């Protein structure tokens, strides 16, 4: 029979490990087995491919080295990496130490963890130095974590996350683990005169302070405490944010297999939620937080409340879906989609309107292969459509303004509110209209419509482009030429166009041809929100103006004589508060035609 090395002090640790792994496996297996069939097919299709290796590499990079956090915040990176990677290495080298010493392939896990207690006389040379160095590395990370909790400003963070009870329990246990390990190993060294530069030196000191006959008792107590802290931490992991340590691993794999969150929440949503480390990186980039409008509705809090079953519709609605937090999230959680799914779940019924009107709208007849869709907001900014008409005339193009007379909403506002069924009705109507009209190019000036067309619509054989891309192509091909190049212009990236669809270059290409482009301090993926977003369902006009004013001041700081944007919603929001002219990119072009 193999040696079980049982000692009473390992009981708390064993209980902790057993609870943690049974709860976690149950959770993960039930989530993965409850995934929709389509997701399972994706997993089966991709599991035996290079995607698995990619995921392995990503898991190493992100779960241990936290490189994405490093790109956002260096100090935060050090804290996370020293704790996670340091601890990981402690486990690995602990195992190596035990393997080398015992020369047996089967060693119970607690023997590696409590190696020094079991084998106080073991001298493993360089490994001892490495183990002490690693412990010091982890302790430095712990110190960083303590500082972050009390002085988030030292990490460039205005606000740190507030904690739940589970978090506090886990956090207290976690903070105790490594100091206790240090003490336990040092007392061990004090008795047996072992240990390396850290535990050895501290042991020497302790031996000098404490009477030698008390040392064995203190030592035994310390190991009990260390084991208890570990056990407590493991038990509290499933009820705290530390679940992220383990949840991130399957998340990375499933994501690599192309599984995605859905506005109709699946168990993948639950996995993503569990993978949130509540680092709080999403709080500061939020326009609601920057403008002091609401500081408890950010993604971290919505995910937390959802996990604990306490999310409210008011909290879910309080978000512009601007995508600034999603872009910064080091775990890559699909925050916007998840928020929409929460809205959908919390609103039981949407029965006020039946959207039956879509069937009463006639299908217009196309008179061109190029169709232009203004959208609801576009029709409230007629200067955009008029400019496009003038540009088309100048280029000798015939464009069909399909929704000039009447049209059906693209469905994105309904989708963002969580009313997926209504959005589907709009989509079906428009899909039929687009396909039957026989157009091959669908141009829209509205990034909100554009995103829906691209992400949700099935439009085979139709190219979907933004009007800024359309103009850029006309310019590149020389069709649209002879434009005046005058004035300094700054450009506001609309959320849906920039972060939503990654269209940054074409609008800039257009502006470069008609004037001097000056970039605001935060632009492209980091650009601010105009505050007009249809996604926020409870913002007062004053609050919207506050957000817009912040964005306007930043754009005005460039000294440009005119703010150019390429979204009718952004135009409306920004012009309400701007001190300079705000125009759509098509107006800027039309104004400079000879």
């Amino acid at each position, binding site marked *: 029979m193999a040696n079980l090395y049982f000692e009473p002090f390992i009981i708390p640790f064993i209980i902790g490990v057993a609870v943690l792994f049974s709860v976690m496996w149950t959770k993960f297996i039930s989530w993965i087995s409850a995934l929709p069939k389509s997701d399972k097919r994706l997993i089966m299709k991709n599991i035996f491919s290079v995607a698995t290796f990619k995921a392995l590499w990503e898991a190493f990079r992100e779960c241990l080295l936290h490189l994405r956090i490093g790109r956002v915040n260096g100090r935060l990176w050090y804290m996370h990496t020293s704790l996670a990677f340091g601890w990981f290495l402690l486990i690995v080298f602990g195992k190596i130490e035990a393997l080398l010493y015992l020369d047996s392939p089967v060693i119970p896990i607690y023997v590696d963890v409590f190696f020094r207690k079991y084998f106080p006389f073991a001298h493993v040379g360089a490994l001892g130095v490495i183990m002490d160095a690693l412990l010091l590395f982890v302790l430095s990370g712990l110190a960083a974590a303590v500082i972050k909790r009390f002085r988030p400003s030292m990490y460039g963070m205005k606000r740190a996350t507030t904690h739940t009870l589970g978090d506090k329990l886990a956090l207290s246990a976690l903070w105790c683990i490594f100091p206790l390990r240090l003490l336990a190993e040092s007392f061990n060294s004090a008795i047996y005169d072992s240990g390396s530069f850290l535990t050895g030196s501290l042991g020497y000191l302790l031996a000098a302070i404490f009477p030698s006959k008390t040392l064995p008792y203190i030592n035994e107590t310390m190991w009990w405490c260390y084991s208890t802290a570990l056990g407590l931490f493991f038990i509290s992991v499933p009820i705290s944010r530390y679940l992220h340590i383990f949840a991130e691993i399957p998340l990375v794999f499933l994501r690599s297999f192309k599984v995605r969150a859905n506005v109709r929440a699946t168990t993948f949503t639950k996995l993503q939620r569990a993978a949130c480390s509540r680092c709080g990186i999403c709080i500061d980039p939020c326009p609601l937080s920057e403008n002091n409008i609401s500081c408890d509705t950010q993604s971290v809090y919505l995910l937390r409340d959802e996990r604990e079953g306490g999310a409210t519709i008011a909290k879910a609605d309080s978000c512009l879906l601007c995508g600034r937090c999603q872009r910064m999230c080091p775990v890559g959680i699909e925050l916007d989609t998840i928020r929409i799914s929460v809205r959908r779940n919390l609103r039981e019924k949407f029965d006020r309107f039946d959207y039956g009107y879509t069937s009463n709208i006639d299908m217009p007849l196309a008179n061109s292969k190029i169709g232009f869709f203004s959208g609801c907001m576009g029709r409230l*900014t*007629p200067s955009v459509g008029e400019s496009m008409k003038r540009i088309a005339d100048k280029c000798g193009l015939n464009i069909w303004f399909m929704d000039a007379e009447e049209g059906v909403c693209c469905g994105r506002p309904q989708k963002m509110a969580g009313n997926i069924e209504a959005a589907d009705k709009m989509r079906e109507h428009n899909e039929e209209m687009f396909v039957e009209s026989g157009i091959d190019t669908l141009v829209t000036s509205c990034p909100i419509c554009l995103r829906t067309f691209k992400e949700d619509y099935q439009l085979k054989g139709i190219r979907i482009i933004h009007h800024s891309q359309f103009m850029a192509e006309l310019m590149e091909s020389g069709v649209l030429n002879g434009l005046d190049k005058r004035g300094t212009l700054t450009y506001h990236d609309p959320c849906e166009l920039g972060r939503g669809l990654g269209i940054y270059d074409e609008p800039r290409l257009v502006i470069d041809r008609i004037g001097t482009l000056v970039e605001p301090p935060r632009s492209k993926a980091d650009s601010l929100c105009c505050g007009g977003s249809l996604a926020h369902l409870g913002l007062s*006009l004053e609050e919207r103006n506050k957000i817009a004013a912040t964005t306007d001041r930043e754009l005005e700081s460039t000294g440009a004589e005119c703010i150019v944007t390429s979204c009718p919603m952004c135009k409306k929001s920004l012009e309400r508060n701007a001190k300079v002219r705000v125009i759509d990119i098509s107006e800027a072009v039309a104004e400079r035609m000879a």
Partner: protein
Amino acid sequence: MAAKRVIVIGGGVSGMQAAITLKKQGMTPLLIEKDINLGGKLCRWDRLFPSQTPAKEVVESLVGQISELGIRTLLCCEVSEIARNEGKIEVSTTDGNSYEAEAVIIASGFDLFNATRKEEYGYKIYPNVITSVDLEEMFKEGRVVCADGKAPRSVAFLHCVGSRDRQVGNCHCSRVCCITGVKQAMEIKELYPDCNVYNFYMDMRMFGSGYEELYTKAQEKYRINFIRGRISECSGTIDSGVRIKAEDTLAGRPLKLTVDMLVLLVGKQAPALNAKFASELGITVSPDGFLKGMDCFENATRTSVEGVFVAGTATGPKNVGESMSEAVKAAMDVSEYINTLS
């Protein structure tokens, strides 16, 4: 006391009326007007509700009295700085001079709402979308036609453009646009009896004497269609018409309509100058940007600063009659104040 000098800022109806009353009370008013002539916004107006009195008559009468009484008037002159020092009001003007007086009456009026800010209505985008002021000028010239020179066969009026609209930051009611809409609709009908006229409104605020009667007459005699509901969006048609989308909230259904001409009844809003008066003199402004009197009753034309008085639409939208009555009240208050000084 010898001087009794009073500066009146603004040469519109209330400024002129105030200056005239001051002079008649034995004081020496100095009237400062930024435009080339006296009369203010009324110079662009044709006829006045509810009596259809030509605006010209009112302006000419006041201007006549100004010259008869020999009131000193500065034209094309704007206030660049205003301050109160040791009980005196010091006003510097853009022509480089400065003037001192015992008191000042601010009768600087209002600004018209810039209709291009409601882009969805297509002002300055579609040729036949005009404002009530543009229409009044057409009446004045005696030629009310569409951009192509033809007589309109249908005209729509939209009430509350830039008033009672939080989106543009104007929560207040401009008061006179409702009755102006009724008056102009009737005038259109008088010019073109076969023209279809529609007024889109939120609610009709017929506060003045004779207004309600005019509103009834507009419906019964002139057959003007009053539709309760706002226009949501406009677009141009091939023949330069204006396609309107609205909601008839009484019938509870959406409505589409093509008209030859759309008239936007633009509201009154506080001029940017008010903020300057507020900061330099220390008087208070209301949340809507208009200047604030000491109270809404007997001290309505006094301000929290001694020697500074207000009259007319500087404190909020008013009609011509109200502005003139208030100017008299302000002048009487000034006279009382100056008499207490000596």
